[in-house]
């Protein structure tokens, strides 16, 4: 980080290689759009570059910082999109041609994408951080700048809603068993 603070672009390059995946993954799952996710990842790492001179050693580390910033950027972007459209952000249709062999598997994936997309922004973030990014509840609560109790309560509601949604799509039992015999 000291090298980044000294405006060493090679250091930024190596950080991007090492940790660039984290904001990109969060962006992908939060916004369901790889292009926007790359933008989020770039913005997150650029913030690290800009604020490197204020970096304090001994904190939670670069990964935690990137997680926190990426989550907040995604939440901001979702809020902005909702304000501009006046309704929920429509999920982007998967335009990739689907091979017959992967059709069923993709149906499950699409159902999960839809259900995660239907969750309110903060609930979505709580599921992504705890399940996909494997953060503890307290780390995730820190990343979202929330009280741990409030976070756990929100996560509980998010899990219930997600489960109900996926079950409602009818893809949970039969298709999973078929995909993973």
């Amino acid at each position, binding site marked *: 980080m000291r090298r980044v603070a000294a405006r060493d672009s090679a250091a930024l390059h190596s950080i991007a290689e090492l940790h660039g995946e984290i904001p990109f993954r969060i962006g992908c799952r939060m916004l369901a759009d790889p292009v926007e996710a790359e933008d989020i990842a770039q913005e997150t790492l650029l913030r690290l570059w800009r604020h490197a001179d204020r970096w304090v050693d001994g904190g939670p580390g670069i990964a935690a910082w990137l997680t926190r910033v990426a989550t907040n950027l995604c939440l901001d972007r979702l809020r902005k999109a909702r304000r501009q459209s006046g309704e929920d952000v429509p999920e982007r249709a998967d335009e990739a041609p689907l091979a017959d062999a992967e059709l069923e598997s993709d149906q499950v994936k699409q159902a999960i994408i839809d259900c995660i997309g239907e969750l309110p922004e903060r609930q979505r973030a709580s599921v992504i951080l705890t*399940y996909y990014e494997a953060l503890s509840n307290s780390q995730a609560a820190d990343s979202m700048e929330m009280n741990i109790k409030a976070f756990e309560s929100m996560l509980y509601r998010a899990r219930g809603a997600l489960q109900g949604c996926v079950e409602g799509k009818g893809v949970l039992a039969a298709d999973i068993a078929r995909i993973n015999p």
Partner: protein
Amino acid sequence: MTASFSPAMQAALDRYDVPALPDGFADRLVARATAEAALEPAASKRKGSASPWRRASRIIGSAGIFGFFSATAAAMGLFGEPVEIPVISDVARQFDMIEERPAIPRAVAAENMQAPAERETGADGAAADEDTAAMTASERLQRLAADPRFRKLTPAQKRRAIRRAAKRMIDTGEATPADIRAALSDVRRGRQAAADKPARRAALRQRIRNATPEQKARLRERFETLPPEKQAAIRERLDIARSAQSAAESDSTDTQAEKPEAGPVEPAETAPTDAAATSTVAPPAITPEQREKLRERYRNATPEQRAAARERIRARREQAKAKARTSVRERHTKIRRRRN
């Protein structure tokens, strides 16, 4: 974390994989970072005006500062006469940045607020009290309004003084509110008449001047029927008017006398050598016969006598001019003194 979901749900959630980070992501990021670093000074300049709150506060602050400076300048008299602005003027006065207000002594105001008779004490007090008791409300208020110290007051102070005097009269039972109302309207009428007086007098003079001999004779008859005091007062007024007129005429005669052939001026009479003759009093009026005689004497005078006469006239005129200048200067000094 994963324990919270059922295995089937976990299997379903695991289907949601994300693509790998695009190739060249790090290179694009570094390129953007270096480009931004190059533009940093310009960006930091823009940063200052980015927030609408900051912009609004700057505009409001600038307007406030502009208003404050304008008010201060007005209070200090930079735009002409100093304007009285409540707090700023007081502060500026404290630091001697502006002059004190034209002093209207409160003591005078307070004195005027009392009925004139109340102020009088001593041997004449009782007589004055009797005199005042005999006066009507209208006379009292007129007397108050005629007091020179009352005239020095501001309109608001005048109103207050009149209100107090009226209240006192009502409280002591000397007048009823109706009397006071009538008295106030009398005072107002009197003030109006006083304001119109010079114009009316000028019009009257003009009418008398243009009157036919019969009308003049009638006027004379009416004058003779008037009581002697009134006749004396009118005569006195006419004398003042006449002397002013003759002074103006003599001025014009002096102007003519500068030219040798303009008319006769006896050096000994027109420009007496003693100080009394050159005093500030207007020269006495002369009759047309006297003027003719003077002209004759000037015509018969030697060139040296004429030159001496002209010299004396010039000296007298310069004295008059100097006096006029002094009186203007005195007036200015008086105004300045009153302001301080």
